[in-house]
């Protein structure tokens, strides 16, 4: 898909996500925005039939729901139900929703699952690839590194671990809460092929997934992003981890994103 079209779609999905959060008065605004360019590229350009996608940073679910609705997995009008009583569109990915393979949200779970799926695909020669999106705060979970070891041990070059490196977590900066850097060096030391890009630059994101090739090593994409990306009032501010926009801020967001609004609300 053309870059301009991917950018247009990402802006519209950001508008969907921020509208869902504003309506529901709950959600994880900052992280949903930071990883949305990666999610958009994956779902509209990269993923092939049989590939697996795992949103390990499950709290960033709003953009994922918006993408699945737009892709036709369920009616767009269902986005109105986000976080409402009895709805399957809860605040984390839910495998009871069409299009979602695994319920995630307990941090540190996605990559071990991804290693299993990638290993089975590789041994059986199905050609399926696995894409796991993790948070940077999530990197403090020990199970991430158990899986990092296993991914390299089994030479899973069909496995992509994407770190949404927005530098912020709920309590503040990642380097203040639990120092991660040099995070790329850690992944390299575990035997992964590491690439750093601007994860909010669609050209770089698309180019990365197009060029990534098999080579005996699993892939780690260190996607440097901006938490709250696209929302002027929320960018790079830790308190927007799960702060909810006002109606005025929602309109401000539409303007900044260059969209008229959403057609389902």
């Amino acid at each position: 898909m053309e870059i301009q079209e991917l950018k247009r779609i990402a802006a519209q999905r950001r508008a969907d996500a921020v509208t869902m959060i504003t309506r529901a008065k709950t959600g994880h605004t900052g992280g949903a925005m930071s990883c949305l360019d990666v999610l958009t590229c994956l779902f509209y350009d990269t993923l092939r039939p049989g590939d697996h996608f795992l949103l390990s940073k499950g709290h960033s679910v709003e953009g994922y729901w918006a993408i699945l609705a737009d892709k036709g997995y369920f009616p767009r009008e269902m986005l109105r139900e986000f976080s409402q009583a009895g709805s399957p569109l809860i605040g984390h990915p839910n495998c009871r929703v069409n299009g979602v393979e695994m319920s995630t949200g307990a941090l540190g779970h996605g990559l071990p699952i991804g290693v299993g799926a990638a290993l089975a695909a590789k041994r059986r020669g199905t050609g399926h690839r696995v894409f796991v999106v993790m948070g940077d705060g999530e990197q403090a979970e020990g199970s991430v590194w158990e899986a990092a070891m296993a991914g390299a041990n089994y030479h899973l070059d069909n496995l992509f671990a994407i770190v949404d490196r927005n530098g912020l977590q709920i309590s503040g900066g990642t380097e203040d809460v639990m120092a991660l850097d040099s995070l790329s060096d850690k992944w390299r030391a575990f035997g992964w092929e590491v690439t750093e890009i601007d994860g909010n630059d669609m050209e770089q994101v698309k180019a990365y997934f197009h060029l990534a090739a098999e080579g005996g090593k699993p892939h780690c994409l260190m996607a440097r992003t901006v938490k709250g990306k696209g929302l002027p009032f929320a960018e790079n501010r830790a308190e927007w981890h799960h702060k909810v926009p006002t109606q005025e801020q929602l309109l401000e967001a539409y303007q900044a994103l260059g969209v008229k609004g959403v057609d389902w609300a």
Partner: protein
Amino acid sequence: MKAVRKAFTETLVSLARENKNIWALATDSRGSVTLTDFARELPEQFVECGIAEQDAVGMAAGLTLEGITSFVCGPASFYAARSAEQVKVDVAYCHRDVKVIGVSGGVSYGALGGTHHAVQDVALMRAIPDLEVFLPADARQAEALTRYLAASGKPAYVRMGRGPVPEVYGEDCPFEAGKANFLRRGKDAAVIACGEMVYPALEAARLLSGRGIEISVIDMHTIKPLDEQAILAAAETGLVITCEEHSVHGGLGAAAAEVLCQKRPTKMRILGLPDETLYSGTAAEVFAHYGLTAEGVAQAVEEGLK
């Protein structure tokens, strides 16, 4: 005498030879699980995860995304506790075709001590929705259970012991998940046991019969889904005694009590391991210390009948 784990792995190898979608995972535990033959014969269906139980259970769930039925096997103490969250979320909450096989459960590891004992596993696992929980009583039943697990398509936790155990079942080994087996029927009391406590419970019945007391013995091999009808039938004797290699909190006894106190209040006694740092010794010595023996069960019945 045969170890339950051995019967499990022998059956698993034979099933996996025929069905290439059956895979086994281990955490540097292929020897202790007795999966060495499986790993040698079917290397493409075997996954070594290293000493990383959380990763192993997550990987087991991940394999199922490609159509695999996963048997993830290692010490019960680590699988039911350290990776409890992966069992809860990745296996049960996500309805994956994963069997979590906890071997050397209970106090099988004997004098290795509390780090290696799994005596809270049933309490933890049976509180997880959509997860079946089994404790096979002997090798034959383990074989039948393994065949069931390979075909069920459902998530399950299985606790097995370590050492060889006497035969409870002969050639005729009825096994239906969720349906307890009445091994003996008596009018004076009923003993409900699970796992490797079933044999001592049967021995207790023989001792008591010699003393003029006739008891029912029920093998509750499935803790979840629980056979409530069998528990209510046991209550008809007027005295229900449960016996398990597990903490007296939250296990078979608690499960039976939950049924009886709500549906048919009945005099009960829960035999198991006390809520304390356990006495140290071989499994047999620990059982003797806490009265988890044929004589201990018999005495508990006699006291209950007074």
